[in-house]
C-alpha cells in the first residue's frame, strides 16, 4: 500500500464533515512532514505519531459531533412531546416483548444447566422395542447396564420419593429423591454444609442419612448452622442430617426438599419389570450420544440373551439432559419468541412510517440547514441520532414492561427443569435488550433519514412545495402497511388456534363434578400402617367424624385423585381372553372406600358401589369403568364377570362412568376400583388410599380446620398436605394454556392495534395530500359517499394483499404450533375466518376516520388555498 493511500484510509476515520473541511490540509501537512522526516527512523516515528494522533482526534471529533447532535435532538424532541411519547411507547412494546421473550428462552432453552460440564450429561431410559414407549430403569437393568457400558465416566440413578417428617413441630409431608451415592459427584454439585453420600451410606441396612434442601433447612431448621448430626424421622425411620445443598440446587426438579441414599435391598434386583429409576450418566470426553446409544443397544441385547425369560424387548434410550424438556415446552417458548419478533417488526415498520412522515414535514428545516453548509451525511447522522435517542427511551420503558411481565412468564416455565432460579432481568437479558434497541433504531431510522435527505436542495425551500408527495414514498408506505396486516394476521391466527384449543379442552367432561369438593392428603407411612386393618381403622374413624360435620354430605378415601396423578397403572387380564399381541391390557388401578363415587358424583351405571362388607376375608370384588366393559365385554352384562388384577381374581359388582384420570388432554386407561380392605397386609404401599375427598353443601374451605382437628385426634403424628378444592386440580389442567394464551394474545392485540394505527396513518396522510384532488372531485359532483368509498377501497385493497400473504404465513405458523394444539387442526377454517374478520375490523377502524375526513373536505377552501 502506498503511503498516500494508507494515510487517506486513516483520514476516513474522521467524521465526514471534518474530513470535508480539513482533509486536504491534513494531507498537505502530512506530506510536508514526510518530506522533512529524513531517514527511515524518522519516518517510522512520524507514522506512529500520526496513527496515534488520528485515532485520538478522530474519536474526539466524533464525540463532539454526537454531543451536539444529542443536544440538538433532545431539544427537537422536547418540542414535539406527543410524537416523542408515541414513538417511545411503540418502541417500548416491541423491545419489551423481546426482552421478556428472551428472558424466558434463555432460561428454558439456552442457559447451561447448573451442573459441571452439563453438555456431557445424558438421561438414560428403557425403551420397549415393541411399543416404542420409554420407561424408567429397573434396578437390575441399571446395575447391569452400568457394569457393562464403557461410554460413561459415571452412571447414577435417582427416584422421586416422599416422606412424612416428624419431630419438628407439625408433622409435614416432604417431596424428595433417593439417589445413588455417585449421583451428586457425577453432576458435580457440592453441598453448602456437610458432605454428600458415600458408598457406605448407600448399602443395604446402612444407617439412614439425609441431605436437606436449602429451603427445608431455612424453613424447618431456621438455617441452624449446627444442623449436621441432627436426627429426624422420615416415615417412621431414623435419619441423620449429613449436609445441606445450595439454594441453586434443584434436582431432579424444584419440588425436591431432601435427598436420601437409594440403599437397594436384595429384593430390588429381582424383578426387571419394576421400573422406577431415572438414569443419569456422564459421557466420557469425546464419546457422542449416538455412540453411547449404540453401545447400550449391544449391552441390552446381551442381557436379553442371558436372561431370556425376564421382560424381553428392552433397549436403551440416551438423550442429552437438556433435551428432556418436552416438545410442547420448546414449541411454546419458540412461539413466544416468534410472536415477540412479529411485534417488534410491526413496531419498527410503524415507527419507520411515522419518522418518515415527520422527516418529510421537516424537509424545509433540513434544506435550510443544508443551505447553511451542513452536508447530507451530517443531516443523516443528525436524524439517526434522533431515532437512536427515541429507541433508547423506548428500550428503557420496554425493560420496565418486561420486568412487569416476568411473574406471568415464570408460570410458563416447565416445572420439570432441574433449575432452582426463576427467569430474571439479568445482564444477558439487558444485553439482548440493548442489541434489540440498536437494531430497532437502525431499522426504523435509516430509511426515513436517507429518504428525507435525498435530493435536498433549494427546491425544498420554495414556498408552496408540498411536503414529500411522491409515488416512491407512497409505495414504500403501502408496502409497510401490507407487511403489518400480514404479520398481525399470523399472530391472530396463532392466538385463535390456541384459544380454540383451550375451549376444546375446557369443554371436555372430566367424568366427575368438582363443585364444593375439598381434597387433602394424609399419606399413611409404612411400616406403621402396613397392616390393612390398621389403615381401615384410621379411614373409618376419620370418615365417620367427617361425615358428622355440618354440611358434609359425602366423604371418602382413594389411592390417587384423578388428574393430580395419572399413573398407578396395572395390567388386568380377563380369564378366557388370552392376551393378544399389541392389545392394550393396562388399567388405572385405584383402591377406594365406599362413597367415593357419590362424593365425586361419578355415576354408577350398573350394579353397586364397593361396600363396607367387602372385607379382606370376603370375595374379592371390583368396580370397573364403562370403557373397561367396552374393551372386554362389549354388549354383555359385565356384572358377575371375572378379571385378574393386583394378584387376585376379582368379580365385577359395578360399572362406573369413565373418568379422565390422565387429564383433559390425554387419553386415559380404563379404570378399575377395588375396595380399600382387599389389599393383603404390607402389599402395594403406594396404592394405599391417601387422598381424602369431602363434598359439603357449605363452603368446603371452611372445613379445613375441623378436618385437621379430626386427623390430629385420630393420629397426632399424621401430617396433612395438598389441601385444595377439587376444582383447582381441574383448573390446573388448563392453567398453562390460559397463561400461554394471555401472553400470545396480548402480543396479538398489540400487533393488531399497531397495524390499525399504521393503516390510519397512511390513509390520513394520503387524504391530506389529496385534499385538493378530492375537492376538485366534489366540485365536479362526487358525493361524500363516493369519496368515502374511494378511501375505504384503498384501505381494503392493502388489507386484502396483506391477508393473502398472511394466510400463507399463518398456515406455516399453525403447523409449527401443532404440538400445542388439541382437537384443532393448524388449518382450522373457523379460526382463519375469525382472524380475517378481525383484520376487516382493523381495516375499517384504520380507514374510517380518514375516509370521513375526506368526505368533509370543503371544495371551496382547498381550491382557494393554491
Amino acid at each position, binding site marked *: 500500500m502506498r503511503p498516500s493511500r494508507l494515510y487517506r484510509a486513516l483520514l476516513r476515520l*474522521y467524521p465526514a464533515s471534518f474530513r470535508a473541511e*480539513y482533509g486536504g490540509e*491534513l494531507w*498537505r501537512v502530512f506530506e510536508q*512532514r514526510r518530506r522533512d522526516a529524513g531517514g527511515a527512523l524518522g519516518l517510522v516515528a512520524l507514522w506512529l505519531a*500520526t496513527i496515534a*494522533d*488520528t485515532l485520538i*482526534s478522530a474519536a474526539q471529533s466524533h464525540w463532539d459531533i454526537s454531543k451536539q447532535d444529542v443536544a440538538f435532538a433532545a431539544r427537537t424532541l422536547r418540542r414535539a412531546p406527543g410524537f416523542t411519547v408515541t414513538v417511545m411507547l411503540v418502541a417500548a412494546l416491541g423491545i419489551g416483548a423481546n426482552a421478556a421473550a428472551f428472558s424466558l428462552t434463555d432460561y428454558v432453552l439456552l442457559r447451561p444447566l447448573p451442573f459441571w460440564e452439563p453438555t456431557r450429561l445424558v438421561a438414560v431410559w428403557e425403551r420397549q422395542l415393541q411399543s416404542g414407549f420409554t420407561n424408567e430403569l429397573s434396578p437390575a437393568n441399571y446395575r447391569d447396564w452400568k457394569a457393562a457400558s464403557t461410554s460413561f465416566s459415571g452412571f447414577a440413578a435417582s427416584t422421586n420419593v416422599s416422606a412424612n417428617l416428624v419431630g419438628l413441630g407439625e408433622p409435614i409431608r416432604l417431596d424428595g429423591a433417593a439417589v445413588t451415592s455417585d449421583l451428586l459427584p457425577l453432576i458435580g454439585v457440592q453441598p453448602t454444609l456437610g458432605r454428600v453420600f458415600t458408598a457406605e451410606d448407600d448399602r443395604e441396612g446402612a444407617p439412614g442419612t439425609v441431605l436437606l434442601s436449602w429451603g427445608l433447612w431455612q424453613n424447618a431448621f431456621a438455617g441452624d448452622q449446627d444442623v449436621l448430626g441432627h436426627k429426624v424421622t422420615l416415615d417412621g425411620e431414623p435419619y441423620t442430617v449429613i449436609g445441606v445443598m445450595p439454594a441453586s440446587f434443584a434436582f431432579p426438579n424444584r419440588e425436591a426438599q431432601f435427598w436420601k441414599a437409594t440403599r437397594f435391598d436384595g429384593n430390588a434386583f429381582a424383578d426387571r419389570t419394576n421400573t422406577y429409576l431415572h438414569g443419569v450418566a456422564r459421557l466420557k470426553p469425546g464419546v457422542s450420544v449416538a455412540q453411547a446409544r449404540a453401545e447400550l443397544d449391544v449391552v441390552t441385547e446381551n442381557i436379553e440373551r442371558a436372561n431370556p425369560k425376564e421382560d424381553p424387548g428392552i433397549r436403551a434410550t440416551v438423550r442429552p439432559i437438556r433435551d428432556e424438556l418436552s416438545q410442547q415446552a420448546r414449541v411454546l417458548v419458540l412461539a413466544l419468541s416468534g410472536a415477540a419478533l412479529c411485534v417488534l417488526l410491526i413496531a419498527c415498520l410503524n415507527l419507520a412510517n411515522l419518522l418518515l412522515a415527520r422527516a418529510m414535514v421537516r424537509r424545509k428545516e433540513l434544506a435550510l440547514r443544508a443551505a447553511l453548509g451542513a452536508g447530507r451525511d451530517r443531516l443523516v447522522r443528525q436524524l439517526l441520532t434522533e431515532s437512536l435517542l427515541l429507541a433508547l427511551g423506548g428500550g428503557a420503558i420496554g425493560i420496565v414492561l418486561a420486568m412487569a411481565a416476568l411473574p406471568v412468564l415464570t408460570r410458563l416455565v416447565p416445572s420439570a427443569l432441574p433449575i432452582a432460579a426463576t427467569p430474571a432481568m439479568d445482564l444477558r437479558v439487558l444485553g439482548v435488550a440493548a442489541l434489540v434497541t440498536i437494531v430497532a433504531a437502525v431499522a426504523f431510522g435509516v430509511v426515513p433519514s436517507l429518504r428525507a435527505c435525498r435530493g435536498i436542495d433549494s427546491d425544498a425551500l420554495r414556498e408552496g412545495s408540498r411536503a414529500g408527495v411522491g409515488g416512491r414514498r407512497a409505495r414504500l408506505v403501502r408496502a409497510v402497511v401490507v407487511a403489518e396486516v400480514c404479520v398481525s394476521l399470523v399472530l391472530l391466527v396463532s392466538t385463535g388456534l390456541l384459544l380454540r384449543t383451550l375451549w376444546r379442552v375446557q369443554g371436555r367432561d372430566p367424568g366427575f363434578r368438582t363443585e364444593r369438593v375439598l381434597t387433602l392428603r394424609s399419606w399413611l407411612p409404612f411400616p406403621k400402617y402396613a397392616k390393612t386393618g390398621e389403615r381401615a381403622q384410621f379411614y373409618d374413624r376419620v370418615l365417620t367424624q367427617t361425615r358428622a360435620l355440618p354440611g358434609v354430605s359425602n366423604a371418602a378415601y382413594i389411592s390417587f385423585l384423578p388428574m393430580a396423578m395419572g399413573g398407578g397403572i396395572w395390567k388386568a387380564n380377563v380369564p378366557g381372553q388370552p392376551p393378544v399381541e399389541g392389545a392394550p391390557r393396562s388399567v388405572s388401578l385405584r383402591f377406594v372406600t365406599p362413597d367415593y363415587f357419590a362424593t365425586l358424583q361419578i355415576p354408577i351405571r350398573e350394579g353397586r358401589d364397593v361396600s363396607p362388607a367387602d372385607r379382606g376375608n370376603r370375595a374379592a370384588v371390583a368396580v370397573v369403568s364403562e370403557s373397561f366393559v367396552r374393551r372386554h365385554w362389549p354388549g354383555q352384562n359385565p356384572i358377575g364377570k371375572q378379571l385378574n388384577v393386583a394378584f387376585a381374581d376379582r368379580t365385577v359388582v359395578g360399572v362406573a362412568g369413565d373418568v379422565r384420570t390422565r387429564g383433559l388432554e390425554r387419553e386415559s386407561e380404563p379404570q378399575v376400583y377395588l375396595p380399600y380392605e382387599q389389599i393383603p397386609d404390607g402389599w402395594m404401599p403406594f396404592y394405599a388410599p391417601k387422598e381424602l375427598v369431602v363434598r359439603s353443601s357449605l363452603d368446603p374451605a371452611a372445613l379445613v380446620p375441623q378436618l385437621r382437628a379430626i386427623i390430629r385426634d385420630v393420629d397426632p403424628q399424621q401430617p396433612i398436605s395438598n389441601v385444595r378444592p377439587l376444582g383447582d386440580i381441574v383448573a390446573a389442567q388448563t392453567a398453562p394454556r390460559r397463561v400461554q394464551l394471555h401472553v400470545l394474545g396480548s402480543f396479538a392485540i398489540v400487533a393488531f392495534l399497531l397495524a390499525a394505527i399504521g393503516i390510519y396513518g397512511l390513509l390520513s396522510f394520503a387524504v391530506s395530500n389529496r385534499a385538493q384532488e378530492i375537492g376538485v372531485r366534489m366540485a365536479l359532483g362526487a358525493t361524500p359517499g363516493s369519496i368515502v368509498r374511494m378511501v375505504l377501497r384503498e384501505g381494503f385493497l392493502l388489507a386484502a394483499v396483506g391477508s393473502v400473504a398472511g394466510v400463507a404465513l399463518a398456515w406455516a405458523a399453525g403447523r409449527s404450533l401443532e404440538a400445542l394444539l388439541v382437537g384443532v387442526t393448524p388449518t382450522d377454517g373457523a379460526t382463519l375466518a375469525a382472524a380475517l374478520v378481525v383484520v376487516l375490523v382493523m381495516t375499517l377502524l384504520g380507514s374510517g376516520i380518514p375516509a370521513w375526513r375526506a368526505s368533509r373536505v370543503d371544495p371551496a377552501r382547498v381550491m382557494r388555498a393554491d
Partner: protein
Amino acid sequence: MTHDGSDPEKLLPLPPVTFHILVALSDQDRHGYAIIQDVTARTDGALTIQAGTLYRSIQRMLEQGLVAEKRTRPAIGEDDERRRYYRITPFGRAVAQAEARRLTQMVKLARACGFVPGKA
C-alpha cells in the same frame, strides 16, 4: 460565531495546545504546517503538535472566535495559494493575555512558597 465583547476569563484555563497556537499566531499569520514548526521551534523541540490535534483545536478556536481564517492570501510566490492561513482575532489576543496573566499568577504563588528558586 465570535465572542467579541464576551468575557475572555470564561475560556480559562486554556488547553496548552490552544495557548501554543495563539502564541504562534501572535507575530504573523500562518498556515497549519507553519504553526506546527513554530511551536516546535519555540519549545526547542519539546512539543510537536500532531496534525489531527492541530486542526481539531483550530476548528474549536474558530467556533470560539479566537482565530479567523485569513481571507487575503500572501504575496504571489511566497507560498502555496491553496493553503488556509489563520490569524489571531482581538478576542484571541485578549484570551491569550488573560491566560498569560493567570500563568504568571501561578508562578508567583509557586515562588512565594519556594517551589521556584529566584527573585521573590
